[in-house]
């Protein structure tokens, strides 16, 4: 819990700074975040490689690992299909297309803006950023109440990169491989599913 509060504080401090202070464009550019991410992944790699238990966990993985991305895709599409009944202004395929971004906001926003217009494109952007944020911020709570696969499933397409460090931290190193396989599989499904729901 303490870890989560510290993390949220850093994020909120960033939001306030970005909102009210005219920060140098260097800080909002993609590069600093990207390089911080690279450094982080390298460090996470070292901690996995030096962990003798992680190697043991890897040896015991099998095909059931593919059930995790499958659960994420089915769960997300089911949930967004149901909610389209409640949202009056949005059609079934609108909601499915937004949901099929799985947190991969750059790609899904481009697709949806192109096929469905700027309004749904903006919704897709905000929705998928929120998904990534919730995965980052709620990971410890998700683990406690819904098990160690919940943060991975909520992380969607981001679990092979941006949310991997946080998942490693709260789910343990034995879930790193699950998280990476999940991220890559869901990531690959995004362009196919989003275009499919945009064009039917």
């Amino acid at each position: 819990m303490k870890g989560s509060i510290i993390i949220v504080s850093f994020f909120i401090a960033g939001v306030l700074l970005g909102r009210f202070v005219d920060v140098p464009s260097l800080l909002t550019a993609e590069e600093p975040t990207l390089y911080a991410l690279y450094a982080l992944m390298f460090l996470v790699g070292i901690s996995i490689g030096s962990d003798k238990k992680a190697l043991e966990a890897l040896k015991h993985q099998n095909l059931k690992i593919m059930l995790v991305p499958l659960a994420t895709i089915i769960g997300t599409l089911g949930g967004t299909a149901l909610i389209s009944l409640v949202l009056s202004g949005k059609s079934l395929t609108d909601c499915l297309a937004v949901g099929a971004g799985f947190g991969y906001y750059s790609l899904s926003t481009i697709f949806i803006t192109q096929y469905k217009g700027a309004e749904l494109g903006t919704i897709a952007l905000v929705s998928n950023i929120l998904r990534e944020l919730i995965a980052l911020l709620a990971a410890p709570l998700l683990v406690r109440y819904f098990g160690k696969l919940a943060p991975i499933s909520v992380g969607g397409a981001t679990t092979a990169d941006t949310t991997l460090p946080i998942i490693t931290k709260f789910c343990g190193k034995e879930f790193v491989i699950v998280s990476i396989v999940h991220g890559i599989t869901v990531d690959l499904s995004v362009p196919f599913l989003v275009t499919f729901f945009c064009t039917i």
Partner: protein
Amino acid sequence: MIIVISLMVCGIVLGYIFREKNLKIVQKLINYAIFLLLFLLGITVGANADVMNNLNSIGLEALIITLAAISGSILCAWAVYRFFFISTK
């Protein structure tokens, strides 16, 4: 994503080679990197006028869709965890 995974593989190889060394500092550095990353992500969100202004109107619909998507995911992930991951331990 290929760069990210390659970097991690390099780290894994290095970590494996030096696994007998004391690597406690790595865990500390990981925490600092997470804090920095979230701080930078916050700045990007706060400085993006489109995201901040639209969070009121369009944001509500986005939030509803997100919560629906996440709830479905959590439900399925919990079921998979409960029936395929815990029971085999």
